[in-house]
């Protein structure tokens, strides 16, 4: 094989790296808007699924338009509160996109987004996003509450890379459906959250659901996520329930 001088090797590397850098940054800037839109559509779809909407998303000819229309139609309001329940001037959707960074702050300093759902001015439902840690990476979810600000009307969870068949089961129906009808405050009005119980929860218990066998750490992570994120809503929820 031919031998090459050091200068040649140096120039060759320099040109190669420059070409690659230009190519990659060009493609990245071109595709960025599309990628960000995908993430936004997914969040909107998850919020809608929590209140039992967007069920035809897979069949819709144009999924993005379908989700956007449903979101416009059914999510009638959204706002952000702080730990004490004061209204803040911020965009709820922006805060939700930023949730992974938000949960690193102390609970008292976070912003808490709320999405209000109602169909034809019927009863409202309040959807809040959650973010936490599973076994292998982030997990997140959404819980919708009835107007009593206590009863769960639906819950959706998802994960980045939990073990298939074990922790990954948190995004399946059998795990999520039992949350419906549970309450997060006890009779005395204290915040007790939802306990994820190993070895089977009593279905009539108001604050317990089944954990996943073999997915203990993911189940525990999910339980902590609900406590961690919901604590900040307690003040706001009590205020809403009293009005």
């Amino acid at each position, binding site marked *: *094989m*031919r031998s*090459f001088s050091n200068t*040649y*090797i140096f120039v*060759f*590397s320099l040109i*190669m*790296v420059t070409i*690659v850098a230009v*190519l*990659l940054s060009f*493609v*990245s800037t071109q*595709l960025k808007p*599309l*990628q960000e839109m*995908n*993430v936004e559509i*997914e969040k909107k779809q998850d919020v809608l699924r929590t209140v039992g909407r967007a069920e035809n998303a897979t069949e819709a000819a144009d999924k993005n338009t379908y989700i956007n229309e449903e979101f416009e139609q059914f999510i009638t309001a959204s706002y952000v509160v702080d730990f004490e329940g004061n209204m803040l001037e911020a965009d709820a959707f922006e805060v939700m996109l930023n949730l992974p960074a938000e949960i690193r702050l102390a609970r008292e300093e976070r912003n808490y987004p709320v999405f209000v759902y109602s169909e034809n001015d019927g009863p409202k439902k309040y959807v809040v996003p959650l973010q936490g840690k599973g076994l292998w990476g982030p997990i997140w979810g959404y819980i919708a509450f009835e107007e009593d600000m206590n009863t769960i009307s639906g819950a959706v969870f998802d994960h*980045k*890379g939990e073990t*298939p*068949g074990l922790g990954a089961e948190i995004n399946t129906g059998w795990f999520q459906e039992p949350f419906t009808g549970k309450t997060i405050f006890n009779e005395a009005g204290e915040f007790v959250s939802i306990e994820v119980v190993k070895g089977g929860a009593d279905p009539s218990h108001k604050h317990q659901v089944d954990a996943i066998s073999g997915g203990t750490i993911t189940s525990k992570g999910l339980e902590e996520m609900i406590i961690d994120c919901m604590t900040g809503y307690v003040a706001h929820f009590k205020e809403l329930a009293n009005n």
Partner: protein
Amino acid sequence: MSTEKEPLLSPKNLKLLTEPLGKSNPITVQVLGICSALAVTVKLKPSIVLAISVMVVMAVSNVVISLLRKSIPPRIRIIVQLVVIATMVILVDQVLKAYAYDVSKQLSVFVGLIITNCIIMGRLEAFALANKPWASLLDGLGNAAGYAVILIIVAFFRELLGSGTLLDIQVIPQAFYNAGYVNNGMMILPPMALVVVGVIIWVQRSRRKDLIED
């Protein structure tokens, strides 16, 4: 090097395309690229997408390296190969994120890990550095197809037996479940992918005695 013009699909070139499907299959014979074969084959759809992605990365990097083969300084050739592969993988990843978001979420890290797929690096080093672009393209496509075939066979059995679906469509009728049939949860876990690959290797070697080592 011979100067006479060789037909584009001469028997020799065709062999580059077909041999990796059987006799020199990258997974079952050379035992390369096993880790992704274990990880993504729970469902058919991500397997097909990964197979296509690997095919694109492999074909393009093979051609690029082959075109540059006379100007790449041997001392930094491994780095050059890595840069070419990494660039292609990032492009594929970006395109998937923009146009096939759901699938890219299922594949998560595995698209990025195409970089470490030994088949690609192996073909660049063993073939593209010493051969013309057209032959390299065929070699890349052939090896990627050999990889794809195994991935899809494994995913077919794992999804069918593990979830009762194919491409997320229910194929095992409800009547079976009513009669007491249950999906095999083991098939979803990585060890069963290894067992399925093992069975494929067994079947292949029992049919082709020349592949059996002593």
